[in-house]
């Protein structure tokens, strides 16, 4: 019983770490997208204000 519980725990850990990894890459992609959007708005504002 103790071995089975240990196995389940390991599986659970592996599953969770996989999920965290996926979530982490999604968070990074979202952060990059938001950062990119801010830069885009800034650059477009500069261009528009300079009469472009």
């Amino acid at each position: 019983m103790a071995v089975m519980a240990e196995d389940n725990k390991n599986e659970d850990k592996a599953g969770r770490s996989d999920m965290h990894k996926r979530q982490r890459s999604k968070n990074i992609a979202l952060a990059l997208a938001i950062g990119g959007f801010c830069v885009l708005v800034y650059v477009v504002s500069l261009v528009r204000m300079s009469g472009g």
Partner: protein
Amino acid sequence: MTDLSYTSATGETGITSSGEVRDYIALLKPRVMSLVVFSGLAGLLVAPGDIHPILGAVAVFCIAVGAGASGAINMWYDRDIDAVMTRTRGRPIPMGKMPPAEALSFGVVLAVFAVALMGLAVNWAAAALLAAATLFYVFVYTMWLKRRTSQNIVIGGAAGAFPPMIGWTAVTGDVTIEPILLFALIFFWTPPHFWALALYRCGDYAKAGVPMLPVVSGPRETKKQILIYTVLLLPLALAPWWVGMAGLAYAAAALVLGLLFLAGAVAVWLDETDKAARRLFGYSIFYLFALFAMLIADSNSLGLFGALAG
């Protein structure tokens, strides 16, 4: 973070977690997007007048994001038939990689973002056309025509014909005869392109209950229609030269490319197997890329050939 459980349109229940970054990219149909971006860029480059390079890049980016958003919403709506068809069952939703609602919200957010950015950064005429293209693709093609009529891709093809018009309008701020010609070019190119695919994927479409022309009227009628549209496309491809948008080099290229397209359509007509249809589908993609590349190179507003010659 917990896993999400959902029931798909086909009734099956799946346990799935939120998708990975590559699944979101797959929702945008990157391969389709490349053609859309290229034709949008062509419209932008051949239009008379100037646009700041950064604003031009933003316009092309908005066209790409708008097209991707339409693709994501299409995948949300068509998830039941995507699961049945061999060509589409590897998509993120039928694979259970993400809940359908996530694809829908992703698509809607991107569509609103693309239209708003186009309006604020470039101009509202281009933004209106981008909104029209997205709405047409989602509501008219995906939700209304696709499952009801064999003329689905003829009328629905209008959605894919918008990008060069949007690119042009991003520069000029209005719609004249030239962008309408570019629109017509893609509009008449779409049926032979999709019907060539449908000819060798006929069983797939029949299984999913999508009334594509080969399913409803048979391969003979489809081959006839491919031939008719290819014949119509030939003079239409010369029209940019006729109205003074492009020079003789473009006209010569359009003629050669069009004749090769016609030869492919004749081969499809004569071929009892699906070999010629597969070849025509591949060629049709090359045709559009090559035609627009020539249009860019030989357009009277850019005059690259003229500059090289002079």
